């Protein structure tokens, strides 16, 4: 864990506890803020007004939504597996929260620096598939089952190019620790040296979050609600929460792996090394937050701009285009790196 300790007067608080607390709260709030942001941006794109009644500018809308969901009736369909039906919505929320532990939010501002952080992140991300698939399986509804199967096939398909894109980042960093990956981008962002990998990773992050143009899993027009057709009340609310948390995590991962994490572009050239530690902390966290906000915006922007793919197109994009491309990208980068060092 992070060895640094912050001393305020007589108090000595370990930095990892502070980052953990702040990170958890920002993760949970990000979902609420993103729901509001998504509805307002969608309204803007479609030339509507959007939610503007609850509180100033409709800012309290997410709170009202949560309250409404809590007060609804919780229904489990007949012949469904009751236990699986209850466990399924918890899995995506838990796995989404787990990824906060290894992400550096600024120089020295991380919870823990494990030497297999990338593997940990990929493992936690792939556990999220279980939630969606089990939900489809346990509901005993045909729409749910189709949605769950589609989710499983789609999410495992896009995990492969994503893993290869991350592997090409590791080639350049030589470490599986996210802190090292963030630190190695102080001069050149990985996007500048590996743009193809960045594009592949962004597309896969979109597919993993199961949103338009990859929302085959829900696809209202063909599957009613997809895997959550039979979910109501807060059980549905947790899938909803998890979806927005995955958007947030997707943005964080894009930022960390390819867009310089908490570094400004070419920061080595003009950021003095002996900067005041508090000033540096504030600068790092604000740069990181701004980048994450930008990518969250892109997620919403894409959702309301691009129509849904057909399922054969999704599979063709994943297996026949992105996977060979990412493998070739990896091989080319490995060859260049090997013979220039």
């Amino acid at each position, binding site marked *: *864990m992070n060895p640094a300790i912050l001393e305020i007067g007589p108090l000595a608080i370990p930095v*990892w506890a502070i980052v*953990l607390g702040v990170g*958890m709260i920002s993760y949970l709030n990000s979902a609420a803020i993103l729901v509001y942001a998504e509805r307002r941006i969608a309204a803007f794109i479609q030339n509507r007004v959007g939610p503007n009644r609850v509180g100033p500018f409709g800012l309290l809308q997410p709170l009202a939504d949560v309250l409404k*969901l*809590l*007060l*609804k009736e*919780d*229904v*489990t*369909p007949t*012949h469904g597996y009751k236990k699986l039906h*209850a466990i399924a*919505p*918890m899995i995506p*929320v*838990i796995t989404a*929260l*787990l990824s906060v*532990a290894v992400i550096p939010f600024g120089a020295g501002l991380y919870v*823990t*620096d*494990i030497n297999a952080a990338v593997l*940990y992140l990929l493992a936690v991300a792939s556990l999220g598939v279980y939630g969606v698939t089990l939900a489809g399986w346990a*509901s*005993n*509804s*045909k729409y749910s*089952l*189709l949605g769950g*199967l589609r989710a499983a*096939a789609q999410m*495992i*398909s896009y*995990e*492969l190019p994503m893993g*290869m894109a991350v*592997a090409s980042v*590791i*080639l350049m960093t*030589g*470490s599986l620790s996210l802190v090292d990956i963030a630190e190695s981008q102080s001069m050149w962002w990985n996007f500048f040296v590996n743009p193809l990998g960045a594009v592949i990773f962004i597309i896969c992050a979109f597919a993993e979050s199961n949103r338009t143009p990859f929302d085959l899993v829900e696809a209202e027009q063909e599957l*009613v609600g997809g895997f959550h*057709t039979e979910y109501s009340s*807060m*059980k549905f609310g*947790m899938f909803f929460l998890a979806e927005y948390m995955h958007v947030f995590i997707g943005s964080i991962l894009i930022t960390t792996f390819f867009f310089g994490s908490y570094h400004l572009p070419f920061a080595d050239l003009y950021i003095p090394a002996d900067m005041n530690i508090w000033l540096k902390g504030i600068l790092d966290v604000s740069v990181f937050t701004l980048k994450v906000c930008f990518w969250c915006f892109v997620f919403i922007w894409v959702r309301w701009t691009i129509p849904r793919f057909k*399922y*054969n197109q999704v*599979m*063709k994009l994943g297996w*026949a285009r992105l*996977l*060979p491309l990412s*493998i070739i990208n*990896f*091989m080319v980068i490995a060859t260049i*790196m*090997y013979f220039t060092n």
Partner: protein
Amino acid sequence: MLDSYFPILILAGIAIVLALLLMTLSRILGPYRPNKHKLNPYESGMDPVGEARERYSISFYLVAMEFIVFDLEVVFIYPWAVRYLDLGLGTFISMMVFITILLIGLLYTLKKGTLDWDLKTNKI
């Protein structure tokens, strides 16, 4: 070494408690008045026909099988990618050969149409 995993344990605890809390809150606060038609699985307003867990397309199984092969490839690549500069030319060449073989395998399965979901051209 292992104590760096301690915060993850705490985090997992908090996450599980939070998820359980949300579940029980809706159970306590919401009403519960079930009836036969409410508990029926949704099938566009009709009475459901048969069980939902029927046989489904073999393509889903094929995707899962292919996934295992290529996911193992990625797992093999990661440790090599961390230390490849120190491991010498022999390791580098054998890794490239390994990846090339798998790439050829992928192109072969694509050519065979195993991962083809297009109904017009699908041969399986």
